[in-house]
């Protein structure tokens, strides 16, 4: 049996999405086929509108549909505190934690020479003019080797500017038993222990 070309095209496009294998692409295609026309139209136009309306904030490189993003234009945010993250999704994860009230800077990646990503490919240059003496910059890149290398690179660049540079804490996740933690994390959790005060 030959598949109808428009079914083939749909399956091919869907299987380009990250995390969607050929089997799930087929399942998604059949699902879309069984939905009412309004629903599929809503999906297609949501995809088009998002692409048309969204761009990166010229200040912090977060995703936005205005000139500057919601964080950059919020006067209640602490303007002396910048949290540097790798991806827009990291920014959203931090926002969701509800523990942070400063600004952000999205690098759009981490340094990885073997993948052709040097510092010049990341939004590092536009970060420097944002940092002034007396401010704090929190390096919240991943705790992978790539994220740690990016953090060390930024530390060297930022310290001469007179800013306080800090690194997101390594340690045990909430809800964990020591027994299930790996040795490296456990070692970092011990050396990074926090003094308790009443």
């Amino acid at each position, binding site marked *: 049996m030959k598949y109808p070309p428009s079914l083939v095209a749909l399956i091919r496009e869907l299987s380009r999405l*990250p*995390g969607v294998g050929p089997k799930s692409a087929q399942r998604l295609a059949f699902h879309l086929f069984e939905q009412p026309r309004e629903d599929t139209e809503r999906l297609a136009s949501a995809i088009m509108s998002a692409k048309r309306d969204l761009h990166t904030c010229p200040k912090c490189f977060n995703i936005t549909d205005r000139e500057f993003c919601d964080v950059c234009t919020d006067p209640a945010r602490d303007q002396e505190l910048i949290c540097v993250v790798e991806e827009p999704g990291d920014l959203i994860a931090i926002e969701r934690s509800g523990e942070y009230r400063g600004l952000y800077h999205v690098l759009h990646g981490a*340094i*990885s*020479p*073997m*993948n*052709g*990503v*040097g*510092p*010049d490919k990341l939004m590092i240059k536009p970060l420097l003019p944002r940092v002034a003496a007396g401010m704090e910059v929190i390096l919240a890149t991943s705790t*992978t*080797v*790539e994220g*740690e*290398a990016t*953090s*060390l*690179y930024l530390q*060297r*660049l930022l310290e001469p500017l007179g800013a306080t540079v800090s690194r997101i804490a390594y340690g045990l996740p909430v809800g964990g038993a020591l027994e*299930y933690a*790996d*040795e*490296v*994390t456990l070692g970092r959790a011990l050396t990074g222990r926090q003094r308790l005060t009443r």
Partner: protein
Amino acid sequence: MRSRTANRVGIVIRRAVMPAGDVILTLLTPQGKVKGIARGGARGALMSRLNLFQHLAVQLYQTPNNDLATIQQATLEGALPRLSEPERYPLAHLLAELADALFQEGEHSEQAFELFAAALRGVAFQPDPEWVALVMSYKLLAFAGFVTRAERCARCGAADPTGLDALSGHVVCRACSNLPRLPDELLGFLRSVARTSVRGLMEVPLPREVRPAAWRALERFVTAQVGDVRSWRSLVSTQLPATA
């Protein structure tokens, strides 16, 4: 036996995170290069162990229907955290990328593994990581059978060649190349690197001012003989001017 598992100990030379959170690792082991996928490895219990340049013991499970083995368990044998430092990090990438290009899957070689492991350790701990990377790059190439011809002109066979051949990366005579003459120290290094011990080479580092030429010679040779290596591009930009 119904078992399809194998245990391997090696160093992670490549790591890619798939969108669903799976991690694909390439390890260089004494039994050759192996590739495997850790399902959910970007969030699960194995997370801390599945990192670049780490020395791991893994259990691989090979199913008949999949080419990519599954990484089921991983224990950390050793990490080299100093490789994240700006002056060491791009050099470690270069060595890993070279090893990935030079050694094939299933090609059993304890010596290749030991050489690469020594190279990474050297870059992590030696005070002059740039020199370690240069020497060990040439040593890895030589081990894989790629030796720069520098004693005689690679084209016409004339003695004492002095310039680089843009096409092959070998050294040629003035008649065969119009590129400028290589520094004498570099010529000496290129002529002796394959037969001198690592220890011997480490004792007589090339002066700093000659190193850019040495990197260019290496880049040309690797590009011509082995193929494209992406880490070159970051070699300059990643290292901060202050520390390079």
